[in-house]
């Protein structure tokens, strides 16, 4: 059974059909790319998958479970985590606390224990600290644990966003233009990070990207969107060689 199975997904904003009859099937462990020209509806697909928008038609299944009408929070608890095109960190909080917010659903104690610092508080906080540090180490952020997220350099902010998403222990990770605004060096580093996430956590990843070097370098499969419709779908090499895709990107 596929990890993510999306059928006939459609949404309209007023008269505009932003996503029309969108289908995608992602198997466990795959690294899947979603590409397309600006305004093709890629981020809208992400917002549909994470419950920010509710689709007019279609079904989204995660691991066999219908998550189409669920709220963003519920969908996260079901196992989809995401990053954002314009980085959305908890900027006034230290790096480690950003990750600990992500861990909160798995490491619990009551509010009263939290206020009194009694009961499970000490034990759970310690476990959280250890788990957060382990994650930060994977992303090479352990040296900045007490830095405010806002003060991190750009590339590290991207990494921290991925680390925070991973802290919720997702089944599927959605990356919205992770390489946006990065120089070739940083992009190279990001590709290593994504490879590492797959290796360390066996993560299934769906990513939106414009950087063709990154897409052709790491994605196994691609879906190309154009004007809200699927233009082409399949193995990366074949898709990128498709004349329709080249036409959509470069014009005739």
């Amino acid at each position, binding site marked *: 059974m596929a990890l993510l199975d999306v059928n006939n997904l459609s949404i309209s904003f007023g008269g505009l059909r932003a996503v029309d009859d969108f289908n995608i099937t992602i198997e466990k462990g795959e690294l899947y790319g979603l590409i397309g020209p600006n305004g093709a509806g890629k981020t809208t697909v992400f917002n549909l998958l994470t419950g920010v928008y509710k689709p007019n038609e279609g079904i989204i299944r995660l691991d066999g479970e219908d998550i189409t009408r669920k709220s963003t929070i519920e969908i996260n608890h079901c196992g989809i985590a995401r990053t954002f095109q314009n980085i959305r960190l908890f900027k006034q909080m230290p790096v480690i606390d950003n990750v600990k*917010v992500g861990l909160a659903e798995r490491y619990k104690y009551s509010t009263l224990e939290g206020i009194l*610092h009694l009961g499970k*508080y000490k034990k759970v906080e310690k476990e959280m600290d250890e788990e957060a540090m382990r994650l930060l180490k994977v992303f090479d952020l352990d040296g900045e644990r007490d830095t405010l997220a806002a003060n991190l350099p750009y590339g590290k902010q991207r990494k921290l966003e991925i680390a925070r998403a991973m802290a919720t222990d997702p089944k599927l990770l959605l990356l919205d233009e992770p390489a946006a605004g990065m120089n070739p060096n940083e992009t190279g580093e990001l590709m290593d990070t994504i490879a590492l996430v797959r290796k360390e956590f066996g993560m299934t990843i769906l990513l939106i990207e414009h950087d063709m070097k990154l897409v052709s370098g790491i994605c196994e499969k691609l879906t190309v969107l154009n004007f809200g419709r699927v233009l082409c779908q399949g193995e990366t090499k074949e898709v990128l060689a498709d004349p329709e895709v080249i036409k959509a990107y470069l014009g005739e």
Partner: protein
Amino acid sequence: MKIDKKTKSNLITYGIVVAAFILFTALASTGNLSSHMKGLLVPMTYYAVIAVALNLCVGILGELSIGHCGFMCIGAFTSAFFSKATAEILPSGIRFFLAFLIGIAFAALFGFLIGIPVLRLKGDYLAIVTLAFGEIIKNILNAFYIGLDKSGIHFSLKNAMELGLDESGEVIVNGAMGITGTPHDSTFTIGIVVLLISLFVVLNLINSRDGRAIMAIRDNYIAAESTGINVTGYKMMAFTISAAIAGAAGVLFSHNITTLTATSQYFGYNASIMILVYVVLGGIGNIRGSVIAACILYLLPELLRGFSNYRMLIYSIVLIVMMIVNWSPKIIEWRKRTLGKFDFRKNSGKEIA
């Protein structure tokens, strides 16, 4: 045991409060405080308490409320009603303790109820609705007549005669004249204890799982939602706790004055803004700063009475200086260089985060 930075910073905050307590008590017992000054000590504590409450709402939750005096008002009236009704039945210690529980519970209840519609709003709209709430509470209480006799509690919105009390009866809440003769149970010591408890609750909350979720919502609620944080639930929690602490300040307030009336002077728009000034100048999100700013800014106009006409001039200059010292990036940088590890803001930046 190793003490981490957050714990250390919290201990400094408690330490400052305790030191201030010792200082003022020593001054009072050696006769170095005028009776006018002594009268200012209890108000100073409840203004510090409500500043802490408002900072939880404004600085930690990130929602601008300018109706916090409304919660203080509810705490004040419910507890004063209880204390006056049971003045002859219960010993003062237990009575005051129960008065606290009642004041806090009612303020929290109203915080919860008001929070349901209010927290759907953002920014300016939230400020306007909370402002209206504060005014409504004040005006409604001005129209309440509640009396007590053998047959129970009587209630009217017209006047005291309408209550129809028998000869054993007593009017407790007398409309715009409010509640008179609430036992004077508030002392400086109790005020300081309440302040320490409020600080303990808020500072510990900030350093817990719930506090991080609340601050995550403040920093970016879209990201918080997609990280699985129950945004509405945590907003309600923070708002209710904040209202409850404001209620505790109200209990201190009502048990410190002879006649409790819902006037603008104490519970109106200006009073709410005054508390917001404490919070902003002490540093939004900086709990320790709120306490210090509340104490200084409350005492200052009173201490400047000798300057008569120049009083408000000096007060406004102090406000401007505090604003610059606390918020100007250049000054903050300079303070970091010169004061090094003794700098409050540097620590507090980590403390809030």
